[in-house]
């Protein structure tokens, strides 16, 4: 039986995570490649198939919004890992810490003193017009002064080999359960490689998460719950997984009730007070009394109980103001402003359609640019200029002209590629990198990430809702 080999593997001018431009294997992949080349194609395919089955038996499924309800899919896990060297990681980790500190200072400032607006570091209208800006949160002081306790930042590596921040997810970043379960699966797939390679562990994420949530309240032995929109939410698997991992109840809005300013859950023996809510319900749906009046997902009175300090919401409502894609363009300046430091992790050049000269440039060069909605996520509502038709471009020109505040544009970045198993062969596929950060009394950047991979040949869209898959991410120890 033929063994796996890379003789046919094409690099094609992209940054490849396994090989350099001379087709020499990079040091971080050296051992892995040698081990893989001892495996037959047959065995490799079997390993992949058994991974698919494991995911099903674990119920690692998600629902796709555009499909009819009830359609469950697994997020395809490609068994060839994305390996990050210890040095690269340590740099990323420092950059992410710097960024999350500045972003939290920014959110706190916006809802309190607004110094950053008074000092004209970022246009006032731009911030206050963000769909994620919550006027109800003005004057709020969340525990530890941290607004986004749980975040995930999307990074990409460009053709120059440098990492860039693509976007920040400060509200309800998803995918961490895949980071944890992918690792468990790959430990069964390639046990011998883990022994040789010294991959940094990720499993303590759940312990850190629990500790962080406990640190946000004075209550001894607090009652911590995870709040989910319910079983039909696309990330339901993750909600239930996390509730189980931290040993908290998984509640829906209808399981909670607010009485005399406190939040209780309805149990078979009466009401039991809730102290901390890790909520995976978006801001606008958490409390129909204050936000979306039609929301059935929330609990009436929840927000006022929160303002009284009787319950902790994680993340704090309003934190999304800092992951607005137009605000994103200013983040290097915000880091400088709050910390007096240069940003370690660069942004991608961003054109803000709300600004006249940028908008003109975008409209003239739309065929070369990636256009995104400022409050969008999940790969919805975006245009990839070079891969789009004239009609699609025209449609976006109209959209931008009608509501310039709602759009930004960026040059198209050719994301780096990782060898990926595709139908009995191995080909390069584009990837991004989403590490997870916990911010309580201190900051923990978990040495691992969700690597999302665009499985369709040539595609740059890695979102699970758009045909993306995932890879386990191995962060190596420094030699």
């Amino acid at each position, binding site marked *: 039986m033929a063994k796996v080999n890379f003789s046919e593997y094409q690099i094609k001018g992209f940054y490849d995570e396994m090989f350099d431009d001379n087709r020499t294997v990079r040091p971080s992949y050296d051992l892995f490649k040698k081990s893989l080349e001892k495996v037959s194609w047959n065995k490799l395919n079997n390993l992949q198939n058994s991974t698919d089955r494991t995911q099903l*038996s*674990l119920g690692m499924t998600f629902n796709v919004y555009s499909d009819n309800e009830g359609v469950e899919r697994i997020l395809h896990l490609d068994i060839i890992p994305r390996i990050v060297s210890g040095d690269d990681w340590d740099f990323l980790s420092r950059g992410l810490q710097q960024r999350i500190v500045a972003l939290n200072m920014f959110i706190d400032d916006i809802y309190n003193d607004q110094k950053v607006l008074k000092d004209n570091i970022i246009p006032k209208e731009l911030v206050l017009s963000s769909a994620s800006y919550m006027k109800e949160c003005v004057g709020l002081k969340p525990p530890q002064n941290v607004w986004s306790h749980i975040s995930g930042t999307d990074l990409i590596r460009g053709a120059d080999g440098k990492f860039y921040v693509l976007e920040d997810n400060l509200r309800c970043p998803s995918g961490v359960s895949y980071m944890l379960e992918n690792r468990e699966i790959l430990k069964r797939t390639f046990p011998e490689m883990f022994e040789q390679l010294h991959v940094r562990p990720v499993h303590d994420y759940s312990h850190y998460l629990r500790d962080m949530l406990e640190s946000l309240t004075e209550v001894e032995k607090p009652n911590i719950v995870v709040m989910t929109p319910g079983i039909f939410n696309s990330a339901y698997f993750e909600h239930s997984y996390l509730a189980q991992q931290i040993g908290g109840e998984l509640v*829906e809005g209808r399981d909670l009730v607010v009485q005399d300013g406190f939040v209780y859950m309805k149990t078979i023996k009466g009401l039991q007070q809730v102290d901390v809510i890790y909520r995976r319900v978006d801001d606008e749906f958490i409390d129909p009394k204050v936000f979306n009046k039609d929301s059935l997902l929330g609990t009436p009175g929840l927000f006022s109980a929160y303002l009284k300090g009787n319950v902790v919401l994680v993340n704090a409502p309003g934190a999304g103001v800092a992951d607005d894609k137009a605000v994103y363009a200013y983040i290097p300046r915000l880091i400088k402003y709050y910390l007096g430091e240069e940003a370690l992790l660069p942004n991608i050049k961003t054109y803000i359609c709300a600004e006249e000269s940028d908008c003109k440039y975008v409209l003239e060069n739309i065929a070369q640019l990636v256009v995104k909605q400022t409050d969008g996520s999940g790969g919805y509502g975006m245009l990839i200029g070079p891969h789009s038709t004239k009609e699609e471009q025209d449609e976006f020109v109209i959209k931008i002209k009608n509501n310039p505040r709602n759009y930004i544009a960026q040059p198209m970045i050719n994301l780096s590629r990782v060898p990926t198993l595709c139908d009995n062969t191995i080909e390069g596929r584009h990837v991004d990198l989403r590490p997870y950060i916990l911010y309580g009394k201190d900051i923990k950047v978990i040495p691992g990430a969700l690597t999302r991979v665009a499985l369709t040949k040539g595609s740059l869209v890695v979102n699970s809702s758009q045909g993306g898959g995932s890879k386990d991410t191995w962060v190596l120890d420094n030699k």
Partner: protein
Amino acid sequence: MLSRIADTMYWMNRYIERAENYARFMDVNFNLSLESVPDAEQQWKPLVMITGDWPLYESLYETVEKEKVIYFLGFDPKNPNSMYNSICNARENARAIRPELTKELWEQINYVYFLVKDGLEKKRWKENDPREFFKKVKKGCQMLYGIFAITISRTDGWHFGKIGQLIERADKTSRVLDVKYHILLPSLQGVGTTFDLSQWAALLKSVSAYDMYRKKYGKLTAVKISEFLILDEIFPRSMNFCLIQAEKSLNTITGNEGGFSNSAEKQLGKLKSTLEFADINDIFDGGLHEYADSFQKELNGVSSAIYDSFFANKYESINLNTTKQ
């Protein structure tokens, strides 16, 4: 324990029990059909009657045929109680309370779920011998009972799950007994024939009672079999045993040691004591069918009372009873 979770736990277990019973019914009946009178209607109609879904069957199918009945009870997505739907419902319930379950239990539920899904896709009811498939589902469910027993702490949720399972089991045992009595013995001439005996044996096998019954009584008689399935105190599928155990779980939940503290305890206690003091001859005098019928009604009443006492969130009417763990 959240009320919603307790409710879901209760139903998850009821559905698993239901699916396992259906799988066994079909396995046993198929077996029987190989050597008995090949009249499909006589052979398969009672099976649909047992489940209480005869009106639905009649509305969907014109004739009673082996393949149709197996499809209807085993796979039909239009039959809300089919084995397939029961497993799907059990899994949806399990998904909703995933954090309450262990990984082993969840994986096994998924195993059974994909088994029946695959069975529907591969049209197992068309196979010459679908028994292997039903055995797999039955074993899959029994594995679930085992994992439930050895990996879940005895929380209130566990006890609600247990109550759901026992109520479903008592209901199914009473139905097996009821329908067989009516269909098999319309006339006394047939009593004691080979045909009659093999039917009675099949009845016992339908509720996994054959071996234990033989051990206790040896000879197959209608009265003893009925006594065994209704009143036996130590056989785990008898109606009496199910209610004794269900009451124990209910008392554990409420912490009540005598009398009753809510309508669920009251109704379950009442029903259990009628079994406790019943005499099989009195039951036969009053009519076995009537007895089974009224038992099923009372049992539904117990299920509603459990809902009212624990799952319906009537918080406006109760005092703010705040508890801290």
